[in-house]
């Protein structure tokens, strides 16, 4: 709990009892009460610093079973995660103990999904008896430069400046997020001055923006990947040769040359080459329609087959025009492989949920933008032991190579593991990497400190929109929810990034991780224990003070699939296992079919 307390011995007993009951009921949080009780002569309104701190430790039973190979019981899978233990050693210190070294730890904890929430807030806004769509999905109580004023569903998210912000105050009093899936509409709104900045300028609109003196184009580096995914639990994609044939049967150069904006490139690997070890291993298959058709015939489908192309009609940096790209892939599949693919467009949130749940039975179009510049962000999230069911059953040679790579302590030492992983991905073809899409954001020319972020997390607190008192940003779509621990959509993450903060953050318009709510996080020599010291004087929007227990509980509710507060919008918490290899108490695999 982080609200300021008034201390008394009686209250100490009550608090200790409550903590024990809480731990016993939920099995979630242990507390270590300091042995030194306050002197009876101590003032009942002692300063907060003198109060004994009930530090949380997670898990309560000691530590997570690292390296578990067999499922402990019928209700759980084996633990594959990399977290061993999280402890609040005092009010301002949190210790993360890991099973294996993690060289990208700081970059990972800087990610938006790990923004710190107040303990009382989590407990009050998540109903342990509830299921999905918890109250916390609609409200935000962060520590960031803006606080949520209103989320008008279907219209906008309005934020007001947080005057109690610990860092530099936001330059503008109000920040408003609007959205439109139409690139043309976004451009019209910018040209007419009703918005100050837009995301994803349409591929054919670059010259229009560049030629308009009232606008400023800010190209964004292609730290992303657009891919064609297949799930190996559905026929005919359960056949390696079918997936390999499709990999060879799609002319990716044609897609990039004709449907992507300047700055885009054909993907040779899943991870962009700008990221260390991203392009380790062999380059992807060359386009060869004849060989692809022969391979499909050898796989038992000489006349092709019928399937679906499933996607969401949402523009992203990696996919600037989904419908057009989908139609060209549809045409190529027909022309090159005689595969008849019906196009099926799904609502964005539903599509992502279906992907995570492994429910997309056809070919699906999806992509990924970098959250932090490390290969684990691309490969581990999608193909690691903690990844979702998007591509079906996992391949041991991929997961083991990724585990080895993630445990490496420097890029050169990690390279052989990523060579193995990328080559195994090429062999198994869970997806076909198509393009690293160049994109751009645009602002009105009078916006100062306007920037684009290679991670897609433009930070509006530093921007000044001329002499206007509010900054209006128009992105591609409405956020599905605002509890970003349980979101994976960039449209939600960018909103959260204006209001919430993690222990570390990414530099503005850059990728380097730098201290945020933590003044520092220091590892031991093996990179298996990270000790983070929290910044003083940080308060949440509701006035509660930040402390180490907030950090422990924020992580615990995501980490432990059995935690009573492990609930959000849909409860998938996709990022945590994706980045840290797995949930504690992971649920058993879904039954076949």
């Amino acid at each position, binding site marked *: 709990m982080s609200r300021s307390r008034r201390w008394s011995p009686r209250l100490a007993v009550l608090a200790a009892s409550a903590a024990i009951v809480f731990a016993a009921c939920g099995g979630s949080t242990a507390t270590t009460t300091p042995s030194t009780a306050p002197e009876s002569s101590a003032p009942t309104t002692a300063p907060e610093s003198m109060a004994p701190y009930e530090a949380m430790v997670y898990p309560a039973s000691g530590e997570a079973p690292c390296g578990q190979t067999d499922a402990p019981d019928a209700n759980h899978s084996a633990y594959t995660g990399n977290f061993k233990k999280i402890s609040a050693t005092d009010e301002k210190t949190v210790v993360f103990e890991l099973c294996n070294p993690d060289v990208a730890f700081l970059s990972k904890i800087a990610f938006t999904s790990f923004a710190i929430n107040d303990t009382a807030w989590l407990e009050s806004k998540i109903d342990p008896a509830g299921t999905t769509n918890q109250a916390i999905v609609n409200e935000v109580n962060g520590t960031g430069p803006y606080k949520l004023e209103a989320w008008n569903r279907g219209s906008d998210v309005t934020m007001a400046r947080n005057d109690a912000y610990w860092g530099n105050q936001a330059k503008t009093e109000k920040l408003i997020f609007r959205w439109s899936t139409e690139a043309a509409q976004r451009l019209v709104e910018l040209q007419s001055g009703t918005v100050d900045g837009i995301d994803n300028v349409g591929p054919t609109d670059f010259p229009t923006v560049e030629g308009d003196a009232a606008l400023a184009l800010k190209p964004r580096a292609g730290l992303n990947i657009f891919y064609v995914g297949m799930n190996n639990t559905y026929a005919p994609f359960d056949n390696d040769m079918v997936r390999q044939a499709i990999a060879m049967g799609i002319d990716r150069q044609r897609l990039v040359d*004709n449907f992507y904006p300047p700055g885009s490139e054909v993907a040779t690997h899943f991870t962009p080459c700008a990221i260390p070890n991203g392009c380790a291993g062999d380059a992807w298959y060359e386009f060869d329609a004849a060989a692809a058709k022969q391979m499909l015939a050898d796989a038992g489908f000489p006349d092709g087959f019928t399937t679906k192309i499933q996607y969401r009609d949402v523009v992203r940096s990696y996919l600037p025009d989904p419908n*057009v790209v989908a*139609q060209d892939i549809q*045409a190529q599949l027909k*022309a090159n492989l005689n595969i008849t693919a019906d196009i099926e467009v799904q609502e964005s949130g539903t599509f992502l949920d279906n992907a995570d749940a492994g429910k997309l039975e056809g070919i699906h179009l999806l992509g990924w933008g970098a959250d932090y510049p490390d290969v684990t962000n691309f490969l581990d999230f999608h193909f690691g032991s903690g990844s979702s069911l998007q591509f079906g059953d996992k391949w041991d040679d991929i997961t083991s190579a990724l585990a080895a790579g993630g445990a490496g302590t420097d890029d050169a030492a990690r390279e052989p593991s990523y060579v193995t992983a990328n080559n195994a991905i090429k062999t198994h073809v869970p997806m076909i990497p198509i393009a690293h899409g160049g994109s751009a954001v645009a602002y009105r020319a009078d916006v100062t400190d306007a920037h684009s972020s290679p991670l897609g997390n433009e930070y509006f607190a530093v921007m000044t929109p001329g002499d206007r008192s509010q900054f209006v940003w128009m992105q591609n779509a409405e956020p599905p929810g605002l509890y970003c621990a349980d979101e994976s959509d960039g449209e939600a993450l960018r909103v959260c990034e204006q209001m919430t903060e993690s222990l570390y953050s990414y530099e503005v318009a850059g990728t380097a991780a730098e201290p945020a709510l933590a003044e520092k996080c220091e590892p031991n020599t093996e990179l298996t224990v990270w000790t983070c010291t929290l910044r003083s004087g940080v308060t949440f929007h509701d006035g509660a003070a930040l402390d180490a227990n907030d950090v422990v509980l924020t992580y615990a509710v995501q980490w432990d699939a059995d935690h009573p507060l492990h609930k959000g919008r849909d409860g998938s918490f996709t990022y945590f296992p994706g980045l840290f290899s797995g949930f504690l108490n992971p649920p058993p695999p879904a039954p076949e079919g």
Partner: protein
Amino acid sequence: MSHAEPSMDATVDILAEKAGSSSLRRDTIRNVLRQRSAVVGLTIMSILFLVAVFAPLIAPYEPNTSMLDLGEPGSRGDPPCIHLFGCPEDEPQHLMGLDSNIRDEFSRVVHGSRVSLQIGFLTVSFAIVVGTIIGAIAGYAGGASDNVLMRMMDVVLSFPSLILAIAIVTVLGTGLTNAMLAIGIVSIPIYARVMRASVLSVRETDFVTASRALGESSRGILTRRILPNSLTPLIVQGTLGIGGAILEVAALSFVGLGAQPPTAEWGFMIASDRNLFFSAPHLIIFPGIAITLSVLAFNLIGDGLRDALDPRLNR
């Protein structure tokens, strides 16, 4: 009495002919042709029909074939290239430019006429058939049957047609066939009401009374006497309805519930290229003009027919 039946039919036929007009068809055609707007409508419709029938001959390319597959130059949203108007001879001619997927827009618009005319006629035919049956039964039977059937029609009419169509497509699944079915279903009440009104009027005429007096069965009276003489307003309404059906299915396709890619349907074509509105407006304008012309044609013809068949407007 075996000789009585032919005699009865002949008598009723004479009465029926007198009740209508012996030269109705001739007068109608003459009246329609007297109206310039109807002539314009008929001309446009004729051209549309010819384009639809001869689409494979008129269109220079297959509607779904990308220039990339043919190895021809071009990029998405290229403007029209017409040799007659100065486009270099060494460049392939594209009368309406290239679309987002680098397909010949003119070929797609031409083939789109087939889809749109099929949509219009099939949708309206379905609605007319079902609406006629419901309206005829309601009007002729009267009483409780009339009440039940027409209240059901009122319920359907109480919803905005496009919203109801969207709901139906959501249940049935997206696709052109389901979109047509949905638009057909929401159109049924219009034809049922028109038919019922006609039946109520015609069933009181002398030749129907005569048929009834001569012992003809209800089904016979309905199908042989009343229906043929009640079709005029249905024809007018149906003609007007074709334009509406084309427009509504285009709207459903625009929002992704009708024609699915890569079908060359005008509404879908506009939706597909809407993001090129500023860089390639011709991709919106040409299918838009096609929709406008086809709807206009059927509306003009419908108006002309209505005027021509309305005895009060006879000059």
